[in-house]
């Protein structure tokens, strides 16, 4: 009887081990290395040397107030937070952004934006602060005009005090300088928006450390999707690194006609606007005297192939966002996977081995990729209300 019980216990134990073992696929050293390149997470805080209030407590505090300040807009009703909503992954859930009018592109999420080098779907901004100026002035968005930020900083006692704490002097009479400083405070705040650790990060760390037991807690479907992502589907060619983006630009076969006879030029138009901007890093408002942060701006070249290219978005929190693509034309993650599975080669202008090709995924493979992408999501920690600027 005792022998029978021992046999049963050992069989149950073996069964348990067997079940656990089934929860971890076989990962080759090359695959483990590829997965490891998507971490660790989170990275160190982002710091921008072109912005003297970047990563400073006073700059971040002022930036958070200004981010939620509707008086920066022309009609006093719209703030940055109108489109970049904390409860909607710092976007708005709309297919196309809505400012004073409906725009042609989707509101991009601000998660992890401080780590980028090019900003906006077309990369027209070479710093987060320069990019933050555009919606303040754009008549289609906040339509604030060039003097509104200065007038507000001078007339509001709390903001003036916050400005002095951040920049070391009271707001002066140079409205363009105050517009730039407003944008630099806004950038300091936005750079603190770092997405939380996710189930993928736990798996990645366990896999790299050889901790099979912890790694086996990651769902099998997500593991299969991840294998496709770094392997056969080659998604990590562009969605690389801990943020799952190269930060550069690509044409993935999304039509770029915005109206009959009118196209969105994408990166090509962005580079035209970058060169013309008085706020780019080659201008007088760059706080980094070394010039080390100007290399991309000095050497980037405008090419015909830039037409229809848009910035490769990061994928963290991607399942909680949407709609997808630069123009919000795909409603769900499933639609995105279907696009990559069925994209027409005729829409891809490639002479050599195409970077994007129809993957021809089975329904199961598509579901696995979605399961993996959803493992890049996590519930963010609620932000506390900001402390008074000058208590």
């Amino acid at each position, binding site marked *: 009887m005792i022998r029978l019980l021992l046999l049963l216990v050992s069989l149950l134990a073996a069964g348990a081990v067997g079940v656990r073992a089934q929860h971890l696929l076989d990962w080759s050293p090359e695959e483990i290395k590829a997965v490891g390149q998507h971490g660790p997470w989170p990275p160190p805080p982002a710091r921008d040397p072109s912005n003297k209030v970047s990563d400073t407590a006073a700059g971040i505090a002022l930036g958070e107030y200004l981010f939620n300040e509707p008086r920066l807009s022309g009609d006093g009703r719209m703030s940055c937070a109108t489109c970049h909503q904390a409860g909607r992954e710092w976007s708005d859930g709309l297919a196309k952004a809505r400012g004073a009018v409906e725009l042609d592109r989707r509101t991009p999420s601000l998660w992890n934006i401080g780590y980028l080098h090019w900003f906006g779907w077309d990369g027209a901004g070479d710093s987060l602060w320069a990019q933050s100026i555009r919606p303040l002035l754009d008549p289609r968005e906040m339509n604030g005009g060039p003097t509104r930020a200065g007038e507000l900083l001078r007339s509001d006692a709390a903001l003036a005090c916050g400005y002095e704490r951040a920049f070391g002097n009271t707001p002066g009479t140079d409205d363009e300088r105050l517009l730039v400083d407003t944008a630099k405070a806004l950038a300091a705040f936005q750079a603190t928006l770092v997405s939380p650790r996710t189930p993928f990060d736990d798996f990645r760390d366990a896999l790299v450390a050889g901790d099979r037991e912890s790694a086996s807690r990651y769902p099998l479907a997500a593991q299969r999707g991840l294998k496709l992502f770094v392997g056969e589907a080659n998604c990590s*060619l562009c969605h*690389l690194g801990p943020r799952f983006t*190269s930060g*550069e630009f690509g044409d993935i076969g999304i039509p770029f006609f915005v109206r009959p006879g009118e196209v969105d030029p994408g990166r090509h138009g962005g580079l035209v606007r970058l060169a013309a901007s008085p706020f780019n890093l080659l201008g007088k408002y760059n706080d980094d005297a070394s010039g080390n942060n100007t290399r991309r701006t*000095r*050497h*980037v*070249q405008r090419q015909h192939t830039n037409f229809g290219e848009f910035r490769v978005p990061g994928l963290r929190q991607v399942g909680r966002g949407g709609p997808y693509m630069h123009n919000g034309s795909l409603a769900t993650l499933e639609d995105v996977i279907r696009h990559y599975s069925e994209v027409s080669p005729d829409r891809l202008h490639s002479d*050599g081995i195409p970077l994007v090709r129809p993957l021809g995924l089975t329904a199961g493979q598509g579901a696995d990729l979605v399961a993996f992408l959803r493992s890049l999501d996590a519930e963010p920690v609620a932000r506390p209300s900001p402390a008074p600027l000058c208590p």
Partner: protein
Amino acid sequence: MRLAAALLGVFLAPPAWADCPLDLGRGTGWVVFSDQYLMAFRPDPLRIEVGEPFALAVSVCTRRGGPAELLAVDANMPEHRHGMNYRAAIVAKGDGRFRAEGLLFHMPGRWEITFDVRAGDDSERLTHDIILK
């Protein structure tokens, strides 16, 4: 005896290209050569990372030890038939030394770096492949 001395002289005499400034310091870098040219280059920073700007320290001369000029540096991915999104600029440092600033590889894979070099009326394109992981 004279023959022995002559042979010794042949073995001891340094080749003409020994004056080439191929030592880029820090004992690192690649050497590329053709029938006409010798060239050495080293990335700065030493490790090229996807998506990060880098420069190349380059030394170039002719096989006969004569001066040569670096005209241009570019890079492309032959499999995908696309180049960089950035254009490198060349700064001459004197004595056959040059610095190419502003390169950036935005994707992993095989990149072919091209070096256009010239000595007098003769010019040539040298290439070197780098696999970026």
